[in-house]
């Protein structure tokens, strides 16, 4: 089967699987969310510290919460059919607009964090596998274990205390200097300064995982016949490690990164909160606490679409890495 036909098969299969999955996710999420006690009007009344029957009724009518559940679901699906994600009671604006304003921030943070984690994790894993059982392996293993078991918010807070409060090198939060009106390179530098700490914090956990996965996979591949052949040909040990071992060890890693792409969207909530980063994870978290169901449904829907897209990319990537996969 040629490559083009294979890709088409993958895309067609994914599309067939994706549509019912997405509809199922929407309906299931809708009823799960409605199981939570209280609604957006309760939250706003709670934060206001006062309410009357009339003001509660006004809010519920405005948010469409006075309708029976099936009607609310139907309204939501009807909106979706028109490519609208509905309206947010908590933020008083269309959900689509809200999510689109947050998405670039999350993609930037995720992109930087995931790239950082991949580069550092794979490099560390390769080093560990190359010197398996020797002291560089031992030291890095301990370090990876430390990163793996330390909660992200704690690393984040310590990073803030060290780099923002004590040293004053980097800002303590936010995604850009507010009201600075920067353009071009100056703006890019400003954003880079802001993204460094949260991305590094978010990356630590994944560095640990990727390093350990890479190490394990490489050690397994090292025992295979073709590696012995490569070594017997007299290739340089590092060339064997990188060209022959690492490439074949990347298979389990790509699967894992594909899965992490999905979890990063929601998993960044803690880091985004600590660093006051206006991204989707924090939006989802705030939406739960505010019972802002349309926002939460929107984020969940988008996340599921992203996971599906990520899976397609992983399928394609694996087909390229290993021609035996079809």
């Amino acid at each position, binding site marked *: 089967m040629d490559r083009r036909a294979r890709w088409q098969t993958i895309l067609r299969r994914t599309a067939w699987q994706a549509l019912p999955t997405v509809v199922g996710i929407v309906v299931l999420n809708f009823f799960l969310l409605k199981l939570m*006690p209280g609604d957006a009007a309760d939250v706003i009344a709670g*934060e206001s510290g006062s309410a*009357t029957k009339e003001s509660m009724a006004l809010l519920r009518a*405005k948010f469409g919460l006075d309708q029976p559940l099936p009607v609310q679901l139907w309204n939501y699906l009807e909106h979706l059919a028109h490519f609208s994600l509905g309206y947010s009671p908590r933020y008083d604006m269309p959900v689509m607009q809200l999510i689109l304003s947050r998405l670039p921030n999350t993609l930037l943070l995720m992109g930087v964090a995931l790239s950082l984690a991949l580069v550092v994790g794979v490099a560390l894993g390769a080093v560990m596998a190359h010197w398996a059982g020797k002291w560089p392996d031992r030291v890095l293993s301990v370090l990876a274990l430390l990163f793996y078991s330390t909660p992200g918010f704690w690393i984040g807070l310590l990073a803030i205390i060290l780099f923002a409060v004590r040293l004053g090198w980097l800002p*303590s939060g936010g995604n850009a200097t507010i*009201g600075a009106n920067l353009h071009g390179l100056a703006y890019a530098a400003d954003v880079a300064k802001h993204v460094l700490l949260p991305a590094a914090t978010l990356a630590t956990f994944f560095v640990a995982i990727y390093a350990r996965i890479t190490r394990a996979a490489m050690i397994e591949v090292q025992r295979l016949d073709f590696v012995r052949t490569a070594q017997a040909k007299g290739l340089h040990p590092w060339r064997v490690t990188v060209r022959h071992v690492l490439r074949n060890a990347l298979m389990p890693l790509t699967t894992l990164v594909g899965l992490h792409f999905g979890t990063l969207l929601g998993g960044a909530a803690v880091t985004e909160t600590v660093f006051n980063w206006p991204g989707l994870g924090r939006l989802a978290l705030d939406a739960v606490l505010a019972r802002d169901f349309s926002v939460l449904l929107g984020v969940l829907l988008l996340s599921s679409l992203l996971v599906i897209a990520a899976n397609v990319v992983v399928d394609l990537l694996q087909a390229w890495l290993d021609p035996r996969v079809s």
Partner: protein
Amino acid sequence: MARLTRREFLIATGAAAATAGVPALSRAQGAPGTRGAGARKPGGTLNVLINPEPPVLVSIFQTTGPTLAVSSKVLEGLLAYDFDMRPTPQLATAWSISPDGLRYTFKLRPNVRWHDGQPFTAADVAFSIDLLKAIHPRGHSTFANVTKVETPDPHTAIIQLSKPAPFLLKALSAGESPIVPRHLYASGDPLSNPHNNVPVGTGPFRFKSWTRGASIVYERNPDYWDAGKPYIDALVYKVIPDPAARSAAFETGALDLGGENPVPLTDLPRLTKLPHLVTETRGYRFLEPLSEIDFNLDHPILKDQRVRQAIAHAINPQIVQKTVAYGFADLSPTPITPASPYHDAQLAPYAFDPHAAEALLDAAGKPRGADGVRFRLTHDYLPYGDMYQRQSDYVKSALARVGIDVTVRSQDLPSFLKRVYTDRQFDFTSIGVNTLFDPAVGVQRLYWSKNFRPGVPFSNAPHYSSPQADRLLEAASVELDESRRTDLYKQFQQTVYRDLPILNLVAPRMVTLANRRVHDHTVSAQGLEGNFADVWLSA
């Protein structure tokens, strides 16, 4: 007992700062009128904490604390208030009340323009009062007696009442009762008016931008009616949800100012030792929070007054004051807090006496069982800040000593509100309420039998129903004579102190944290809900 007043507390923190080797609280943040006029420096950007992020920027139909704070910089009220809650001019320059208390005449400030250039007139005032009465969560009761607002000329508004409303003159601040532009609000549904998020007002600051999840930016209104003010060029509200990140932002100088306990109280001693940070506890007369324990009077055990009295004797309010509130609280055994002129200082907290508590429980027919437990209760707490969780932990340990086994139940805010106020599936709760600027608005709702309204948060949660309390509350809410009104409220406090539907514990003292470069942020009873026209920054 030695109860610290607000003023003494300020002096005390100043002294503590002095002994810590930093300059004592300088009185740059002094009372209005005592400042040197030449000292104020124009310019600069003020970074203020806002948390949680407000849902809308106009407080006409939502009164979440952050909304009041941001709304009052752009939209103004008829009046402002000095530290003793005496009204001072804002959009109204003069006012008078007819002897029968049914006619309020306001002379309005001439030559005031909305930020879009339209002139401000009495029609805006009449329209806004009607709107407040129709859609504001508290306005419905505050303005209930308003029959109509007359506008004999563009600079006079006359509010006509059917019954006296002695609290009305305290309710006209910018945050509580904003005056909105009629020409932008008259058509369409005011709740979905786009100007709720892009406010147009008469105030010292104009709306510039709102980046959801990050910041709200206001800029100086160069055409403000109070010429020369405001002094600062820009006002930036930063949304920072994480408490530790807020502390860090104050340390680095990313935040200049934050109100309503902006950092955890445990962090406060460390932060106030820093040379660039100071605290302020004035400016919360419009909130007056109160920490209390609400009993469900429909509960088979708790409906017995002796059981409630036993619980009152088993809980030491001084531990709540010192340990739960870290000393940032005044004892308040009554629902009208010590800061209010209607507070009854004669009432002391129920004596802390576990033996008396046990005797009362025995008398109520609830002896200890074989395992030493008399009965079991579940305690819910308001998940707002962390104070009420600490209070519920203390309640559990205090009641265990007299044989009441308490299970503390955690849930998030909407779950808590639904459980307590809609489903009424609770035994007793640790909760905080704001008693606001007047008992008729902030306290009556908690005890009035006619405000037992399942489904409405912060209504009469215990299901308390006392003809005597009802009579006193209703009489006080229309009483114009201040001394008679005080007397009625004192009788009311004695009644509910005895009946104990709610065990009132302490009035938490809110703290404002500020960078020393910020001056005159708290110049009135409204505190950080004032309009910031007087704020200036030193280098």
